[in-house]
């Protein structure tokens, strides 16, 4: 694996040349790039963890969240890749979101195989929902439509579009995309309004709309359903959909010295285990994982989506 050899090479260089580097790290503020605008899910995740990460770093520095939004997250990650690999710049990654454009053959200025992974923050699981006034009451009703199911979502190449295409293909549901919405809240609203039939979105995003009675969840891809009476993908006969997730991961540019990654990883894991932090994020629990597990998970997710590449369709 490319990233492993990079890490080993970096470790060797460091061990020989920079014995004192570890003690000095971090010697200035750490910039935490959020490649999306303020107020969204990734922004929220980073801003929640940043102050606690500070608490567990060996030296007192600030962890400064910085929104670098644009080009569907590519701009922020490009900026990360241009930064110095000294551990003082890290970013939150959207996997599969950031893997899709290269998968579709679009030009990007980064290589996910070379990221110095620090940790996982959270994992999002998908559900299939319709508006509560919809005639579709269950998965079985979808089959009875006798026409393709219209899915409201964001544009081709986006995370939402990809998840929708893949999940529908796995479940054998004929579908038609109704794109152009500017985010999950907009396309959930579109489904409630009746622009289209259904929406694939994250459990955490849909929860409030479900409580308010605005939407009906048809199936959840969680391992254990957290919506009373709603079947899981496994119960519906599609266990592979449990592998379809949205990972919020933290990483640095290629070639961050491995001992610095270790320091960042330790701080991050301790921060996520902090009782006060846990109490604060009870409604949206984080799902910590270390550097190695994160790298492995990236591989798994990429493989999952690669398997369904043909389902993604074409622009248009």
């Amino acid at each position: 694996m490319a990233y492993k050899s990079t890490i080993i090479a970096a470790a060797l260089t460091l061990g020989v040349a920079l014995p004192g580097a570890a003690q000095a790290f971090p010697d200035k503020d750490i910039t935490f790039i959020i490649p999306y605008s303020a107020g969204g899910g990734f922004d929220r995740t980073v801003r929640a963890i940043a102050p606690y990460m500070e608490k567990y770093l060996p030296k007192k520095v600030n962890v400064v969240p910085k929104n670098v939004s644009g080009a569907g997250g590519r701009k922020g990650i490009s900026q990360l890749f241009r930064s110095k690999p000294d551990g003082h710049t890290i970013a939150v990654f959207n996997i599969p979101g950031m893997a899709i454009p290269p998968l579709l053959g679009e030009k990007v200025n980064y290589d996910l195989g070379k990221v110095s992974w620090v940790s996982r923050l959270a994992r999002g699981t998908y559900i299939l929902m319709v508006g509560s006034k919809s005639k579709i009451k269950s998965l079985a009703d979808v089959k009875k439509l006798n026409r393709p199911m219209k899915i409201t979502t964001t544009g081709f190449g986006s995370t939402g579009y990809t998840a929708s295409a893949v999940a529908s293909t796995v479940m054998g549901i004929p579908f038609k995309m109704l794109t152009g919405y500017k985010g999950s809240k907009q396309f959930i609203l579109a489904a409630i309004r009746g622009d289209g039939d259904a929406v694939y979105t994250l459990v955490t995003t849909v929860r409030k709309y479900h409580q308010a009675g605005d939407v009906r969840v048809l199936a959840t891809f969680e391992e254990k359903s957290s919506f009373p009476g709603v079947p899981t993908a496994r119960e519906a006969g599609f266990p592979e959909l449990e592998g379809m997730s949205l990972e919020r991961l933290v990483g640095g540019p290629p070639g961050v010295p491995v001992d610095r990654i270790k320091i960042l990883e330790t701080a991050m894991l301790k921060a996520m285990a902090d009782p006060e932090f846990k109490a604060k994020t009870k409604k949206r629990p984080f799902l910590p994982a270390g550097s190695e597990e994160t790298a492995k998970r990236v591989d798994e997710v990429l493989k999952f989506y690669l398997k369904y590449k043909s389902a993604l369709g074409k622009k248009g």
Partner: protein
Amino acid sequence: MFEAVSSGLSLLFTLEGTLYLFLGVFVGLIFGAVPGLGGTTAIALLMPLTFGMEPWLAITMVGGVMGATSFGGSVAAILLNTPGIAPNAATCFDGYPLAQQGKAGMAIGAAAAASSTGGLIGVFTLIAIIPVAKLIVLSFGPPEFFMLALLGLSAIAVSTGGAFLRGLISALFGLMLALVGYDAVSGGYRFTADIEYLYDGIPLVPALVGLFALSEMINLTVKGGTVATKEASGKISGVWSGVASVYRNWAILLRGSAIGTFVGALPGVGGTVASFLAYTATVQTAKDRETFGKGNIKGVIAPESANNAKDGGSLIPTLSFGIPGSAESAIFLGVLILHGIEPGPMLLIEEENVVISIILALTASTVLASLIGIIVARQLSMITRVNVNILVPAVVAVALVGVYALKGEFGDVVLAMVFGVIGFLMIRYGFPRITLVIALVLGELAERSYHQSIAMADGDWMIFFTREISLLLFIVTALCLALPGLRFAFGRRPFKRGKS
């Protein structure tokens, strides 16, 4: 409810409450007035300050900012032909000519009164329709959005300022610019020349700063002198006559506020569209149409009432669905999250005190900002008498720093300068800038919602005429386009006959 309101009020009038409200208003005014900055930047900067605060206090400050920015922005629009924030762009068209005629005080007075009254109407409408808010938000789908955009685009016809062909050329140029970047429907990138900066399209704020502020500064440098022409530089006064003019034109005020509240309530449309619709509605129905763009006070009242009323309106989808109706309300949601309050459809039920805090702060802020504005209007108007050799470098520096500060993106500065030159050439060769801006603002919405509507109906364009609201908007558009012709045909004929 009443109990919650009175406890909210008593909180607002504590020392802390008043202090943070004032802080919000003050920051909002300044950030509104500096081109490029604006309410979202202000709130984003103040956000870290609110970490340790009680949620209601943070919300009070945010409400203060939201209520004050659009009035702050109107001051820059009037005095320097530079919209402080994008929704003030329409205010430039008549506000700046007024300043050139030495009537800056009057224009600021009118903007202040229109802003606060519009803001209050927006908030009261919000309170009145909270029970049916969901219904309203749900009745607007893609076909209705398309018709709304079409209605706005139809205004191009009356905004050409006499240069019809040039106006259309400007508008087409604006539409072309609106197409640049990621196409949310097909997922492709268009006209980006592989430049990553252009992937998200032409950013509105730097473009407006270029088109208005920088082009005007180039123009002033070429002409020399001061903003207010020599003949006009008598005594600066008229603040109160400006205030009075707002209530004399109460129909325009009410219509502007209604348009602002209504458009604000539609997620994804925004204050810029609101103020343009209000402005063009006023021009289209006015009898003295030819005086617009040359310093008609009604051209200040309409957009200013609309862009303040939209704040109340934009909270309708924010509070009922957790979907922001404007950029400011999107950051407001961020502040809520920061304080552990989950926005969404349950907000109204679970967090009544939060809702009341924001409404009270917004109300207090609109009034406070306007009062401050009226008090300092005369001093502010002196800017129009500053010699260009001092004024131009200062304004250019502030505008470019503002543009840079917005996202820390150097490309924005370059883009603003390019548009500054384009704007100057347009002034020079008599191409109206308003039609370009209308097309640039509405082009994306029109295209996207058209595609979505057609996809919804499986290719049947009758969808635009089978839905009641969509059909109604179409009829209004048709009437607006026909009205001048009808008036000409029926109104003037006897006069002409008599003459011949």
